[in-house]
């Protein structure tokens, strides 16, 4: 069967997102349909990793045409087989429609969501079967490792990575080549490399997608990394909540071992490298490298002061080099294409591309990889298709719980490490949450701070106690109990935690609060001094609802949905709302068939 030539390949995305929306059932249905139509030897089903366009999942791509079907359901499968695979007619209704133009786009590459992307880390995701090492090799896989191990010295590799200008994709943006150099410079009988796959930012899933969709790229990156610094053992620290990623990575490690790409004397170079998976229990702080190493050693995941840096005394006291998944995914490309090609992409101080998880009030949510320097405008409107319901853009939150909220004024900002920090946000691992005018910025700050507060390891005073006090202040502001002085106190505590917390988690925890205070201070003030939540989100502050008696048709549907019995029959046929009882939930307004109910 191996040599069978198929006339068509049907790629079904089996990333976590598409599996959740039913991709596995679609695959089974397709298998059955192909069997029924005697097409099993003509058409091959390939399970791939994530395409990034998770909102439109389950996704199916039919080659050789490259037709991109989205939101495929089980019942659509017979039509795809009958129309497309048997008769060659594209099933129009399953094609992607551009949100701006309503135009149906048959081909993958022509969709705006993909057009502006530049895929390096995600190059193979959605294209190859992640469980087949042969597909990876057929797409140029392990060429870079072969080149590195047989034609390059460790110094040459480090030089190449330095010149490429690659910076750590996990959040900090530290120059990767320099980090490798430090680990290389420390002589030791034993060194380790670690891949940090403890992706913990809410909404971020780029690391998971790479591990699920292209696990060999990470193994190859680590192999080059290990050879460059002189390590013979590596760990991938991946959270246990990523079962599919773990499963595929383990299969990839096994396959690489079988082919001698891991183990002893790789490529006959005399270089040995063994790789293990270490499952993390899902503590956010374990993404911090000293806590991560403590966790691998079997200790409580708690950060330790640096110095000593991992490059001097890391895992089990040995020099250790830790890199994020996406960072490592760029390594084979740099070695294959050379630092010049890589550094030609991006901005002056931020080279290459960056993967972002685009979510929130945006039409095209999903995973996008764009060159550094792409503007927020391009990401939100050109790739993201603009805001849901064409509402007004209010802010974009980048960098997850450590990041900040950027207002509309900065939409033209080219995204890179330094520009984001300048405006009070940060790259982080690449979360991007788009917010419209129905978002309360105080509530957003509260959300992120409650996350960091509950994920704090509890070791240092400012993070453990300080974020709790900040959260209490935010809670009371949202509950309408804010008082004069609260803003000043929030700023003081925020700056204090930034200045004195032990690790990166604590030092950046106040960012969502400080950046919203910087750009949306008026919202805080409205909560405290005017007793109003401008976005109408904070229940205690929301204005009650009123029924326009002239429009009311007396259908009574509002009465049925009111959870607090605030609505009763008025004198005429219309209904009225008791302001004292109303909790401003808005259920009545949503239900009203004639839009007779309004807030305020």
């Amino acid at each position, binding site marked *: 069967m191996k040599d069978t030539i198929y006339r068509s390949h049907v790629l079904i995305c089996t990333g976590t997102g598409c599996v959740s929306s039913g991709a596995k059932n679609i695959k089974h249905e397709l298998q059955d349909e192909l069997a029924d139509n005697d097409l099993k030897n003509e058409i091959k089903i390939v399970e791939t990793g994530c395409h990034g366009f998770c909102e439109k999942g389950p996704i199916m791509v039919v080659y050789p045409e490259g037709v991109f079907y989205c939101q495929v359901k089980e019942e659509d499968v017979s039509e795809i087989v009958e129309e497309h695979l048997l008769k060659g007619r594209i099933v129009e209704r399953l094609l992607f429609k551009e949100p701006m133009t309503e135009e149906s786009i048959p081909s993958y590459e022509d969709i705006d969501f993909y057009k502006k992307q530049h895929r390096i880390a995600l190059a193979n995701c959605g294209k190859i079967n992640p469980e087949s090492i042969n597909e990876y090799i057929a797409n140029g896989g392990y060429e870079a490792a072969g080149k590195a191990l047989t034609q390059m010295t460790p110094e040459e590799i480090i030089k190449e990575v330095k010149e490429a200008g690659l910076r750590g994709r996990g959040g900090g943006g530290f120059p990767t080549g320099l980090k490798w150099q430090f680990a290389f410079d420390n002589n030791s009988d034993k060194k380790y490399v670690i891949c940090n796959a403890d992706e913990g930012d809410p909404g971020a899933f780029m690391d998971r997608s790479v591990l699920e969709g292209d696990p060999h790229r990470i193994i190859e990156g680590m192999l080059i990394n290990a050879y460059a610094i002189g390590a013979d053992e590596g760990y991938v620290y991946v959270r246990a909540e990523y079962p599919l990623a773990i499963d595929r990575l383990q299969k990839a490690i096994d396959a690489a071992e079988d082919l001698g790409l891991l183990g002893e004397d790789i490529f006959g170079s005399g270089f040995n490298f063994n790789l293990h998976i270490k499952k993390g229990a899902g*503590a956010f*702080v374990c993404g911090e490298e000293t806590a991560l190493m403590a966790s691998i050693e079997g200790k*409580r995941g*708690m950060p*330790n*002061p640096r*110095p000593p840096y991992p490059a001097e005394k890391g895992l089990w006291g040995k020099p250790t080099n830790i890199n994020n998944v996406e960072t490592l995914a760029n390594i084979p490309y740099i070695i294959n294409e050379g630092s010049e090609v890589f550094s030609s992409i991006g901005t002056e101080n931020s080279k290459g591309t960056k993967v972002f998880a685009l979510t929130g009030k945006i039409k095209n949510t999903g995973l996008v990889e764009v060159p550094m320097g792409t503007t927020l405008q391009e990401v939100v409107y050109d790739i993201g298709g603009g805001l849901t319901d064409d509402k007004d853009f209010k802010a974009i939150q980048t960098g997850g719980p450590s990041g900040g909220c950027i207002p509309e004024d900065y939409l033209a900002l080219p995204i890179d490490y330094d520009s984001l920090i300048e405006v009070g946000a940060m790259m982080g691992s690449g979360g991007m949450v788009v917010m419209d005018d129905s978002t309360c910025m105080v509530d957003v700050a509260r959300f992120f701070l409650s996350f960091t*507060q*509950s*994920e*704090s*390891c*509890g*070791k*240092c*005073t*400012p993070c*453990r*106690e*300080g*974020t*709790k*006090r900040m959260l*209490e202040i935010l809670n009371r502001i949202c509950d309408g109990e804010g008082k004069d002085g609260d803003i000043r*106190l929030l700023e*003081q*505590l925020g700056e*204090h935690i930034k*200045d*004195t*917390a*032990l690790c990166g988690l604590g030092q950046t925890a106040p960012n969502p609060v400080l950046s919203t205070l910087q750009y949306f201070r008026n919202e805080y003030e409205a909560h405290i001094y005017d007793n109003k939540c401008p976005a109408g989100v904070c229940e205690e502050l929301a204005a009650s609802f009123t029924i326009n008696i002239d429009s009311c048709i007396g259908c009574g549907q509002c009465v049925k949905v009111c959870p607090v019995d605030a609505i009763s029959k008025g004198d005429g046929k219309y209904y009225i709302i008791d302001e004292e009882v109303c909790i401003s939930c808005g259920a009545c307004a949503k239900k009203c068939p004639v839009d007779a109910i309004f807030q305020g």
Partner: protein
Amino acid sequence: MEKVTLTIDQQKVEVEKGTTVLEAAKEVGIDVPSLCYHPDLTLHGACRVCVVENVEDESLMASCVSPVREGMEISTRSMKARRARRRNVELLLANHPNDCLGCDRNGTCELQDITHSLGITQKDIEEISGEVREVPKDETGPALKRDPNKCILCGRCVRVCEEVQGVSALQFSNRGFDSIVTTAFDLPQSEINCANCGQCATVCPVGAITEVSEIQKVWNAIEDEDVHVVAQTAPSIQATIGEEFGYKPGTVVTGELVSALRKLGFDSVFSTEFTADLTILEEGTEFLERLIENKNLPHITSCCPGWVKYAEHNYSDLLNHLSTAKSPQQMFSALSKTYYAESTNIDPKDIYTVSIMPCTAKKFEKDREEINASNLKDTDAVLTTRELARMIKEVGIQFENLNKEEYDELMGKHTGAGTIFGTTGGVAEAAVRTVKEKLTGEELERLNLGFKGINEAEVEIGDRTIKVAIANGLRNAESLLDEVRAGESDYHFIEVMACPHGCVGGGGQPLPINEKHKELRSEGLTNTDENSVVRKSHENPMIKKLYEEFLDEPNSERAHELLHTTFKCRQKN
């Protein structure tokens, strides 16, 4: 060693590379306030109270974990550093019960001291007040109690238990604001592998871990006219209690101690050194037998109750190596309700025995079920050095103005050998002095046993070379015992003390306890030994009298009944 020059508060200082900024500041005479830092433990960097400012870039750094760099310019006292330090203390206080008045550590609390010196007021704390941790206290004892609500999560107890004792009875649990220090599975203190050594209580900067107090019980006994209250003071107390009254560490105040006990109302005041001498005769005889029969060697001491419980949890297969001789405390108590009762014609039921101990584990030892030789509870109460000092202060006795008095004679006479039981290596030395003389008639000079980690010595006795090993701190005992377990140990005699430096570093001793204090206290005891007229246990005239009149001879049937004990296997949880 490479040197680094830096400036701290505009003073140049040259220190060794690798020194921390906090240590370098000490060199120029500045104590940077700190809480999680402890000189005898690994660095933790958690409380962030020791923050100082790096003048070059105006950043703040925790000085306890920041190594010095060449050319560094540090301000420990800039407005920025002081504000940040203050804020971190305020944050701790906002989650700390406001009940200093009723706290065991009122007056010795490091958080209280810092609050006072930084001038933090109630108003400052109220500004950031909010939820306060509320978790149950653990008062199951028997020796120690924990109030996690007072805990400031500095981790000193966690570190001492893991790094020094190798027990790891305490660990951090939960996350964020809910973080606490607790036992495995939140089991009560009484049900875990804790040795009750109390090292956690000595390093705790606040009142989160303290001894179970027995002061009130003792006052009740003293107040009761029908009760005859007998006191015994452990060898180390005379060299440590002075610190509670302003004496320098290591000052020996035996006479004042005896006098104070009499003034408190104890009916007779004896010394545990007397039964330390007795222990030597009982244990020495047992060791001699084992040596001759080449049985159960190495012989391991069992006078330290923390060590005994640790062994019962972790090395129950080696319990037959432990000396069956009771600890001096328990020998004393058994005799006080038999020998002493007979000699004085007092009904043993009316005797109440109080031991003044450097130790929290002694509180556990007195409650061991196999310990009731007098058919009564042998030891009725155990007071730590700190508790006794508190009683003395309570009734306003001016310790420094007391006359020096002598112990009561019957069980108060002792030798220098009994005195050095209070420091590491003392038991081994006292035993060897007696064993060697018994075997050869030769006199032995002081063994040159150091005080840190594992130490060993060889002694020629007749035609035999006896190998002695000393371990203080349970972590150090571990490697010795692993050798014994593996059958690779060629020692004949091993002395184990649970606490670093032995009893002078015990869990019940005056605070603060650090390496320097412990060394000085040890010196106090060895000086006393050297100045003693009688320095060998078997030459104690009152011990001779005890055997002649009551016990017959060492390891006699009666001695066995009263002075020897058994051990049991405990779960390793």
